[in-house]
């Protein structure tokens, strides 16, 4: 099953869209500006539709099957969200319209700011960042500006655990700061001894620490209070990577634990679809001390006239993108939050965590689980290592899973676990789906011993066979030839 490229089905003179005739007098084009040719494809609607419908069928999505991709929270994307985001009164608003013509949209944003602040225990929230990593950048810039404003301009170090997601160190560098890595202890927590030692060394230079809790091993740090205390004591600020927030809604507020800044991944925790990689929303919450530093404009509500107004926090780091944030994503997150309420949110985390622990319990003994003795949170990390099947790697298991209509877990991450298989079932999967997954994982473990080629050659039923990623990077073809400049 392959599909030609859109350029390959193009034929001169074809059109998919009718456009109005020009109803005004024509103005000559300025001399020398016109382009000679526009090498875009020419296809009729019927071929256009078939092309994209067929392409879509070559994808696995939440709506086609189980998607236990660790760290990504591939939960149900409720269809009501899509109806909400497409309401004309939301989708057809220009961001620069007068405030009094968009009060409904601003009210929604204001309420979302308030709800997010409440859920995570923060004083203020900006909805502007477009994704988790963007929220991280926002947070780190806020931390630095806050410290600089207090005159502590020597600070340029951010501590990042070795289990951290790649965006944490990348954000640090991108902000012009230095990464110092903190290792984990035997139970998967931040190693307190190491932390103390690093703080002793870097304390005066410390901007803060970035920590996701639960961490990327799926573990809630047993000494989180102490970690926060130590960092604060050293004059640093505590950044929370909220990508794993799905585990602790209504369970604990990061703000209560002492985190100073956190980004929310609205497209993970709050059920907005991932769209094949985006759009997302990386709203950022901060403690009262940092509220004036948020990028904006954010929405303020006037007590006097009950109107919503754009507000730029006075010491803002500046805007991090044009306009106010990924509004369409915000509508979806708002819809989700309004449908769940406080009890619903807690149930989300309880079930997400229970589902993960159930899978962990049932896979114990089938695949190694380095921290399998602990209660995991919403995910856990197994290893694609099987006795009697030394040639089988995590990637083989992952590809074989596809043959059963399931998306593989996250592979080879976190880096500190060899052959990692990071499994996050989410709360929206039923026990039956989990049981089926366990059966499949057991069968694969068995096949690894008896028919290893089944795994090596996998996938067998996917739209294509296993793809050569090395060739792609070596013989770069990044563009259909006739189109390229």
């Amino acid at each position, binding site marked *: 099953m392959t599909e030609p490229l859109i350029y390959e089905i193009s034929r001169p003179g074809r059109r998919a869209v009718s456009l109005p005739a020009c109803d005004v007098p024509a103005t000559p084009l300025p001399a020398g500006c016109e382009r000679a040719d526009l090498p875009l494809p020419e296809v009729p609607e019927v071929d256009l539709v078939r092309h994209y419908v067929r392409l879509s069928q070559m994808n696995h999505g939440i709506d086609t099957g189980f998607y236990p991709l660790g760290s990504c929270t591939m939960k149900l994307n409720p269809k009501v969200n899509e109806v909400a985001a497409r309401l004309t009164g939301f989708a057809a608003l220009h961001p620069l319209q007068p405030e009094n013509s968009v009060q409904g949209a601003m009210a929604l944003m204001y309420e979302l700011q308030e709800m997010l602040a409440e859920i995570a225990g923060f004083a203020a929230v900006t909805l502007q960042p477009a994704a988790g990593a963007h929220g991280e950048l926002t947070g780190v810039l806020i931390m630095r500006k806050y410290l600089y404003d207090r005159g502590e301009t020597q600070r340029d170090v951010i501590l990042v655990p070795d289990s951290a997601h790649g965006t944490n160190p990348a*954000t640090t560098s991108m902000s012009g700061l230095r990464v110092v890595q903190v290792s984990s202890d035997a139970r998967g927590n931040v190693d307190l001894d190491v932390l103390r030692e690093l703080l002793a060394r870097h304390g005066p230079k410390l901007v803060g620490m970035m920590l996701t809790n639960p961490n990327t091993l799926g573990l809630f740090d047993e000494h989180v209070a102490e970690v926060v205390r130590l960092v604060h004591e050293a004059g640093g600020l505590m950044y929370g990577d909220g990508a794993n927030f799905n585990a602790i809604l209504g369970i604990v*507020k990061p703000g209560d634990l002492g985190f100073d800044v956190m980004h929310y991944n609205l497209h993970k925790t709050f059920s907005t679809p991932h769209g*094949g990689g985006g759009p997302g929303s990386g709203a950022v919450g901060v403690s009262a001390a940092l509220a004036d530093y948020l990028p904006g404009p954010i929405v303020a509500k006037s007590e006097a006239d009950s109107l919503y107004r754009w507000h730029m926090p006075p010491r803002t780091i500046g805007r991090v993108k044009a306009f106010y944030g990924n509004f369409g994503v915000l509508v979806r997150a708002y819809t989700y939050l309004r449908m769940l309420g406080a009890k619903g949110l807690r149930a989300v985390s309880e*079930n997400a965590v229970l589902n993960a622990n159930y899978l962990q319990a049932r896979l114990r003994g089938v695949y190694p689980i380095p921290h399998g003795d602990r209660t995991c949170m919403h995910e856990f990390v197994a290893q694609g290592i099987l006795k009697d099947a030394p040639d089988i790697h995590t990637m083989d298991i992952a590809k074989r899973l596809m043959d059963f209509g399931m998306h593989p877990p996250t592979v080879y991450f976190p880096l500190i676990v060899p052959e990692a298989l990071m499994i996050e079932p989410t709360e929206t999967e039923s026990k039956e789906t989990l049981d089926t997954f366990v059966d499949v994982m057991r069968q694969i473990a068995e096949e690894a011993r008896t028919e290893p080629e089944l795994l090596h050659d996998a996938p067998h039923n996917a739209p294509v066979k296993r793809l050569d990623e090395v060739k792609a990077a070596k013989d770069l073809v990044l563009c259909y030839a006739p189109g390229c400049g």
Partner: protein
Amino acid sequence: MVYIPNTDADRAAMLAAVGMESVADLFHDVPEAQRFPALHLPPALSELEVLRELEALADENDDLHHLACFLGAGAYNHFVPSVVDFLLHRSEFFTAYTPYQAEISQGTLQAHFEYQSMICALTGMDVSNVSHYDGATAAAEAVLMALQVGRGKRNKVVLSPTLHPQYREVIHTYTQGMRLDALGEDAPLGDLAALAALVDKETACLIVQNPDFLGRLYAPGEMQALADKVHATGALFVVAADPISLGLFQPPGAYGADVVVGEGQPMGNAVSFGGPYLGFFAMKMGDVRKSAGRIVGQTVDLDGERGFVLTLSTREQHIRREKASSNICSNEALNALAAAIYMAAMGKHGLRTVAELSYHKAHFAVDLIGQIPGYQVVSQGPFFKEFVVRCPQPVTTINQFLLDEYGIVGGYDLGQDYPTLKDHVLLCVTEMNGRAEIELLAEALEEIANMEVTGTSESAGHLNDRRLDDEETAHD
């Protein structure tokens, strides 16, 4: 909890398998003092109720389906063919994650490869990535890339003052604390030569917008001359462009751009109150390894069939971590897909027609407005679909009148960003504006000019016209 399939019975069975008594026990690692806080949230609603509430909120807004819109300034009311949203809404596209597992993500991957190809075609460049968050962050990432290409030895960037003000703001946000010299923003508006004069061996890049924020279109010759000056110093020449304009006018690749960025929203994405949009980013092959963002490459499968994968990932954060070219992870994949479907749907002729319609209608509007006493069309040279008009009253006053009395969304108040352009409005006309709407706008503007005035208008700002090339015209 309707989104949670498991029942109490399921949970009991699962707890037994886990060896626990109650769900609460799962959270024993959470500090007890902070465990299970009360959340003060509004009560949960059913789907019926939430839709009622959302419809009521949506109805509180005046939307562009019920208004005539002459507002652009970085977000554009272009026509989105029905087929775009229809296809975008395919479950398999919008409920998929990033296509890390290529074999079951060929739909996304091939569509993105095609997106890259069409962006290259549109901009005249070699390589495109799969999107940034928006035009502003794409511009900021272009600056960061230029700094990397400059290997930390070039610490100056030159920003055109007619680069979108919000793009410039975002560049400042991204580069704060990097001890960078950002020049050019106080240069005379529209004066390319003045910008060229600021570029030297320490400059990482010059970034200009074409058509610029004030709507002005620079000819390929002028742009090439600028490019040559920039290249002579070894800096990168970055151009921000309106993709619709590229349906009609020469692409930046034809006049020396090293990087082309811009806001992709006008291609198939709703205005949606400012997002989600997509930043497009196209470049020369030579710079690709320093660039940010995801890139799809063509390869083959075990049977030798063509297939697509994410490639050059060694630039990215999940492989390279603190040495990555950027921290970007999630991008605007679905919006890029919308743009791809839009480009394919419009095609070679359709995109040109959209650009032509916008061009002719905008010029028609200028002709009408230029005849209204009290208004002065300040844009003199070539422009595409946006132009500047000096108004007899404050722009906000005019806009409120237009909205209340005529159902018209007026233009952008340039005084917000350019002190010299107080009482100047940036109007935008696209294929969405029928002739009657344009005539209505003119009528409304005339009416308000004849009304009692509350605000007062001051002297026109000095917006350089096309004849500025000869450096003679006075700057303010």
